[in-house]
């Protein structure tokens, strides 16, 4: 599963690199189109269990 979060690019919106949480009424699409923020896709899936690998040396 993935989710979208926004990161600030322009100092006119806030600290560049920090997370942008849009308040009500903010036109996020316009901010992305104008290059003020970028949309970042974030995976929200829990990591799958990795198979245990036996690293013991062979006899």
């Amino acid at each position: 599963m993935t989710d979208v979060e926004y990161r600030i690019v322009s100092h006119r919106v806030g600290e560049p690199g920090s997370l942008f949480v849009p308040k009500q009424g903010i036109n996020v699409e316009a901010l992305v189109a104008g290059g003020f923020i970028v949309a970042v896709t974030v995976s929200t899936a829990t990591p799958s269990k990795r198979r245990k690998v036996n690293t013991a040396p062979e006899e």
Partner: protein
Amino acid sequence: MATNQYLSNPVVKINAVDLTGFCTAASVIQRFEPLDNTTFGQTDRSYVKGLGDHEATVTLLLTYAASETYATLATLVGTTTTVVVKPTSAADSATNPGFTLTGALLAELPVINASLGELQTVDIVFQGGVYSADVTP
């Protein structure tokens, strides 16, 4: 004694973008349509409050560089957004309210307004939306 306040450093944000450094004038008008409820027997007009019809007008130096005026406004034409104007850059408070229109329409944008020997400015108007005066820091 009356107090006059000289506003040299108001803050103007359009769609969360701080355009203070490009703005030379700004006004936010809280307005309601007056509905005439005058009846026979009255000698003066009387009105009741109708729908809110608020408006924000800003005068901006128009530039085309990245992250500046045109880049902010070009993608907003024909859409609704949030406009905030407050008297100073200090935190919102009762003495420094953040006058806000949420969901105001930018119906038109003059994309060029050139005059010989002058800096280019545009007057843009945001119409409608929900008015609030934010006093919470």
